[in-house]
């Protein structure tokens, strides 16, 4: 058994978040926190508001009520690029990569926020731009090595099998050197072996890079094995919060989500 970095103080606090699209209520007063170095899972049936929750955290949606505090800074309204600049990176349920670009170039886009040189300097490949490019390339190569995707470095993403694309997307998020990593169904549609690989990568990201991870996942065994604590949503409300064992025993969860008792 490995012992991971100690789980610390809460880095993300979600308080009483309420989100509605017209008359459709997606989240009604959800509160929970995520501690440093923790793997936190959000589960729930379809339409429970899981992806909406992630979208609120990284600023795609602005909640009508409630606050999200990241590293102690409370905010009601934040834009995605601000969230990214603060150290929040994410992957998407439906892969959102540049399909015509190579794996390497896709990962380089993950470094965008860290690039200092302006367009002209980069276009002319001047001294500072060159140095910067090399620096970023080194970081990206470290991610490629970490995720074991050296063999597809120069392959256009659109030509890769689905499981690998998912891995590349994780890679792009990692290239941003995030403190908080949001993963929206990282294992959807994968076969057993791909799931095992992905689980190992998530654990390694958490362990070696010290990133805090929030993940949405449908595969119960994955959630139970990986996460330290689990939030359960149903119809936009939080119905349970605790360790995987506690959640598994929770009557409301069994009724709402897991179906008849196992």
């Amino acid at each position: 058994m490995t012992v991971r970095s100690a789980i610390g103080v809460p880095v993300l606090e979600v308080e009483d978040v309420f989100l509605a699209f017209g008359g459709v209520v997606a989240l009604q007063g959800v509160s929970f926190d995520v501690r440093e170095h923790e793997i936190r899972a959000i589960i729930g049936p379809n339409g429970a508001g899981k992806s909406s929750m992630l979208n609120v955290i990284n600023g795609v949606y602005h909640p009508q009520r409630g606050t999200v505090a990241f590293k102690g800074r409370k905010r009601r309204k934040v834009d995605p690029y601000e969230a990214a600049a603060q150290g929040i990176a994410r992957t998407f349920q439906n892969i959102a990569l540049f399909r015509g670009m190579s794996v390497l170039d896709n990962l380089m886009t993950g470094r965008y926020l860290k690039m200092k040189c302006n367009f002209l300097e980069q276009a002319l490949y001047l001294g500072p731009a060159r140095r910067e490019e090399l620096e970023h390339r080194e970081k990206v190569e470290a991610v490629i090595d970490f995720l074991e995707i050296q063999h597809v470095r120069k392959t256009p993403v659109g030509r890769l099998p689905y499981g690998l694309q998912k891995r590349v997307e994780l890679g792009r998020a990692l290239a941003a050197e995030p403190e908080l990593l949001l993963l929206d169904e990282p294992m959807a549609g994968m076969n057993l072996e791909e799931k095992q690989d992905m689980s190992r990568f998530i654990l390694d990201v958490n362990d070696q890079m010290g990133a805090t991870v929030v993940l949405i996942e449908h595969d119960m065994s994955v959630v139970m094995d990986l996460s330290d604590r689990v939030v359960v949503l149903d119809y936009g409300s939080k119905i349970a919060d605790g360790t995987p064992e506690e959640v598994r025993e929770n009557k409301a969860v069994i009724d709402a989500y897991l179906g008849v008792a196992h």
Partner: protein
Amino acid sequence: MPEASQDTFARLLLHQAKVRPGRPAIREKDLGIWQTWTWAQAMEEVSSLACGLAAQGFQRGDRLAVVGDNRPRLYWAMMAAQALGGVPVPLYQDAVAAELAFVLNDADVGFAVAEDQEQVDKLLENVPQCPKLKRIYFDEPRGLRHYGQRELMSLDALQALGRELAQRNPGFIAAEIDKGRASDIAVILYTSGTTGNPKGVSQTHAALIQTARVLVAFDGFTERDEVLCYLPMAWVGDFLYSYAQSLVAGFCLNCPESPETVMTDLREIGPTYYFGPPRVYENILTQVMIRIEDAGWLKRGMFHAFMGLAKRVGMRILEGKPGVSLTDRLLYALGALLVYGPLKNVLGLSHIRVAYTGGEAIGPDLFDFYRSIGVNLKQLYGMTETCVSVSMHASGEVKLETVGRPMPGVEVRIADSGEVLVRSPGVMREYHKRREATREAIDAEGFFHTGDAGYFDAEGHLKIIDRAKDVGRLAGGALFAPKYLENKLKFFPYIKEAVCFGHGREEVCALINIDMPAVGNWAERHNLAYSGYADLASQSAVCDLIRECVDKVNRDLSADAALRDSQIRRFLILHKELDADDGELTRTRKVRRGHIAEKYAQLVEALYSGRTSCFVETQMRFEDGRVGTVSADLRILEAKVCGAPEARKAA
């Protein structure tokens, strides 16, 4: 060059570090960039590893297991062990923990170097069963940060220990190298073992170095050569053709970034010589064919037109033989510009001076393909026990069906039984701890019994037909050489493996594995949907495709009087791929016919009983070691048999 002072691998290393300190010794692609170590740097690394091992209590004669992909530090660890008078024991990196246990105990391994977490896990699993295993060192620390085991240490830490010792005692390593003798055991290589447990082959420094010297002289290798080491380190092929030859000739070893990137790395490095078993060449060709069939009509047309020309005249041009018209020469030059050159470039074969294949017979079309586009591919024959090199084609004297003349210094004799016997400086000292087996293999006159059946042709070339014990007879008395048939089948890109049965029976039947990438691609082009290997293998269109291949083999066989009766009557396509993890193939991917006959006895019986289908359930082992079962209803297919009508009626 005073060769006497370079009679051990450690002294060779010292020599290279002195003579060409600034030349590249080894390269590895790391984080996307090729990192180079010179001979002087390599010497430094090896010294610190050796001193570190000594500080940890490594004694002369101790064994150091090395397990992992080809990595510079793993090669250096072997050199370090040899510098201390110890014996490296390279292990197959894809072996499961239980297989490692046998070798670790058999070789009394006390120290081990592992590449990464995966290998460390396997070794740690074996610590309780292998009481002698005291220390495990690892190269790649990823995932191992929180492992608390006392046995574990990183190679970085080991080298730091070594540098401390070297500072206290600067003459230590030189003194240790001085104690080495050419007659010491340099390495124990475990043979894959087509039957029973693997056997450790103990080779001396003298045998290996002498053999390597002959090889280096034979094809004129220099410090300017480049080789990509991608073959398992536990295989004699890698030990001799990469490790030993590099130390003798002073050329550079290039370690691929990962096993999946070999094709890209090959292209980036552009090695000058290349060694691989036929299946590697076959995989490359299969990939080329798949891509050509997916290409546009213009490219496809050009490829086929120029390949036709190459087939006609390419080999004669390569060998500098007369009888090629000027028009053909000009056309061939055009082809080199438009097709052969770009093709070789993509395959990373642009700079190849010489390429070897061995270990198995190579298909004629495969062999001709490479030679016709100007790759000087040659066959060699040998085994771990003889440091490979029994015989080899000399450039300009290449004949497909033979394995060339015996190498200088090698005596080959054919026993009355047809078995090939070999006496040479490269013949092993002994099978480790197996006196009985050694006595059986090496006779009183010092000839090693290879177990292969063969003969010399009129020009003095050695021709190998099959394993002596595998050559059988059909019930009708006709010759039955299963490997010959299997190789013929396997040459079709759609067939990955085949196992033929017929010894003592009326007729020949076969079990066949389809080649997943090739057939999968074919299915896609024909709009066939499939979910996986078993599903694809059971489709009737695929059955017809394979039947065509078998029919073609039968047509070829019918032309040969001796083999006419070996035509394949019935076959079936297996529901799972034959796999080393299930004991069906050896680690070098040779079929274990006996084991398969036993495991699939039910299927073999069905083939001979005239039934049209057979239900089967098989255990299979997944990569993580778990065991599951697969089941399927397999169809038995009839093939077309040509000629000799009277024999067919009887069946």
